[in-house]
C-alpha cells in the first residue's frame, strides 16, 4: 500500500512535524476539514459519504433476512466489509481484499460492535430462526490518508441515517422503509501517527508514508474506550500510549458533535 517516497522528503516531513508544525499548516491535534453527507443512494437502507481532507469514503447499509448465530439466537447480525478500489489510489489493485482493507473493515467493525452501537436484540424477528442481517459496506473513493477515522465516521453516519425495510409475511419490501435502524451508541474513532518522537492526529497521506507507528482508538459517549489498534512497524512507549488516549478521548467529543443532524 506504500508508495515510494524520497529520503529527502521523508526527512523534511519528519523535521517539520517534530518542530510542532505540519506540511499543511495544521497543529498536532487538528483534523483536516471534515464533511458528512447522508442518504445519498435510494437503493441503500442508509448511506453516508465522509471526506477528511482529500480522503473520501462511502458507507452503505443493506439489510436482508437471515439466520442468527447459534450462540446469539436473539440478536441480529452485523457484517462489515471494506474495499480499497483501484480508483482510490495508484497503489490499490483490483481483486480480493488484502491485509490493509481487511484491517480497516475489522477495526471499524470492532468499534461499532463493541460499543453496542446497533441494538441487535431489536433486529430479532423469530428467536433462533430469523433475524435481520445488516451489511455495512465501505467503499473508499479517494485515499489521502487516515482511512480508519473516515470509515468509522461514514459507518456510524450511514447507520444513523438507515431506515428498516418493511417486512410483510417474510417478504422484504425495500421501497417501503419507515422505522429507523435502532442505533443506541455513537462510537468515534480517532487516529494518531507517531512520526519521529511526535504524535499527531489525523495523518495525511504523506504523513502516513513516513510514520513509525499508528494508534487508532474508538470511544463512546461516556468517554470509555471500546476498541483500539496499533499499526505500523514502529513502537510506542507507555507514556505515549496514555497521553494519546487522553487526547483521543477529548477529540472524540468534538467529532461527535458532527453527527448531530
Amino acid at each position: 500500500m506504500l508508495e515510494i517516497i524520497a529520503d529527502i522528503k521523508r526527512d523534511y516531513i519528519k523535521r517539520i512535524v517534530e518542530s510542532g508544525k505540519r506540511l499543511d499548516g495544521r497543529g498536532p491535534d487538528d483534523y483536516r476539514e471534515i464533511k458528512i453527507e447522508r442518504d445519498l443512494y435510494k437503493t441503500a437502507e442508509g448511506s453516508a459519504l465522509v471526506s477528511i481532507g482529500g480522503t473520501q469514503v462511502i458507507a452503505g447499509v443493506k439489510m436482508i433476512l437471515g439466520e442468527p448465530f447459534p450462540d446469539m439466537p436473539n440478536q441480529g447480525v452485523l457484517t462489515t466489509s471494506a474495499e480499497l478500489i483501484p480508483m482510490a489510489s495508484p497503489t490499490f489493485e483490483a481483486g480480493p481484499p488484502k491485509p490493509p482493507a481487511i484491517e480497516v473493515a475489522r477495526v471499524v467493525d470492532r468499534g461499532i460492535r463493541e460499543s453496542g452501537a446497533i441494538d441487535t436484540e431489536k433486529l430479532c424477528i423469530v428467536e433462533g430462526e430469523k433475524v435481520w442481517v445488516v451489511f455495512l459496506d465501505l467503499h473508499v473513493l479517494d485515499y489521502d490518508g487516515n482511512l480508519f477515522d473516515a470509515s468509522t465516521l461514514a459507518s456510524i453516519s450511514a447507520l444513523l441515517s438507515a431506515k428498516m425495510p418493511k417486512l410483510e409475511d417474510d417478504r422484504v419490501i425495500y421501497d417501503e422503509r419507515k422505522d429507523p435502524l435502532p442505533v443506541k451508541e455513537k462510537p468515534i474513532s480517532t487516529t494518531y501517527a507517531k512520526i519521529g518522537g511526535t504524535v499527531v492526529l489525523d495523518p495525511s497521506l504523506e504523513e502516513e508514508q513516513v510514520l513509525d507507528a499508528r494508534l487508532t482508538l474508538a470511544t463512546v459517549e461516556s468517554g470509555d474506550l471500546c476498541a483500539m489498534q496499533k499499526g505500523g512497524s514502529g513502537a510506542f512507549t507507555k507514556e505515549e500510549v496514555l497521553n494519546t488516549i487522553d487526547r483521543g478521548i477529548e477529540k472524540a467529543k468534538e467529532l461527535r458533535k458532527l453527527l448531530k443532524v
Partner: protein
Amino acid sequence: MKKEGVKLIENGKRLDGRGLDELRPIKMEIGVLKRADGSAYVEWGENKIMAACYGPREVHPRHVEEPDRAIVRVRYNMAPFSVPDRKRPGPDRRSVEISKVTKEALEPVVLTHLFPRTVVDIFIEVLQANAGTRCAGITAAALAMADAGIPMRDLVASCAAGKIDGKVALDLMGLEDNYGEADLPVALAPNKKQVTLLQMDGNFTRAEFEEAFEKALGGCLKVYEMQKKTIRKKYEV
C-alpha cells in the same frame, strides 16, 4: 459487549483457580523443528502453538522485496482441529489481521537494514486454541527468530489483560474471553520498553484501561524472563 449469565470470579479466585494477577502455566521450548532455521513451541494454558522462522532468504515473489532492507512476513494460521467447531482451512479475515499486527509487533526489533532484498518469514501454527493465541504466537515467533539467529535489537514478549465481572484481570482464558467485558493484547520489546502490539475490544474506562495496560505490561515482563531462560537453556555453554 458484555454477555450475562456466567460468574467468572468467586471468592477472589477465577474459574481455573487463578488470582487476578496470575498467568496461566506456560511452557516454552526452542529448536523443535529440523528444517526451519529457527523454531519454538509454546504451551500457554490450553493453547498449543508452533512457530518457525526462515531467513533472511531470497524474496519470492520478487516484486515485494525492498532495495534497502529485509522485509518481515508473518503467516498466522489456525489448524482446522484447533477449535471446538472445525475451522475452515485457509486464511479468514481474522487470521489475515492477526498476521498483519503480529508482523508489526515483531518487525520493530529486527535489524532489517543489514539484509537488503531479503525476507524473514515467520510461520505460526495454532494447534490448540483457548484465548490469547496471538500473544502466545508472538512470544513463540520471537523465540523462533532468536533461534534462527536473526539479528535483533531485543526480544518481543506478549501478554493480554482483560476485564471479567467488572475487574481487571491478567491473561484471560477461553471462557473468560467469551463472557468477559474487554480484552487488551499487548506486546513489549522489554529493553527499551517499546510497545509493539496494542489492540483492544470491549469496554474500559480511562482508569481501567491504565490498570489493564500496566497489568499486561507486567505480564509481558514475566513472559520475557521465561523466554530468556528458554534460550539460555539451549545455548548456554
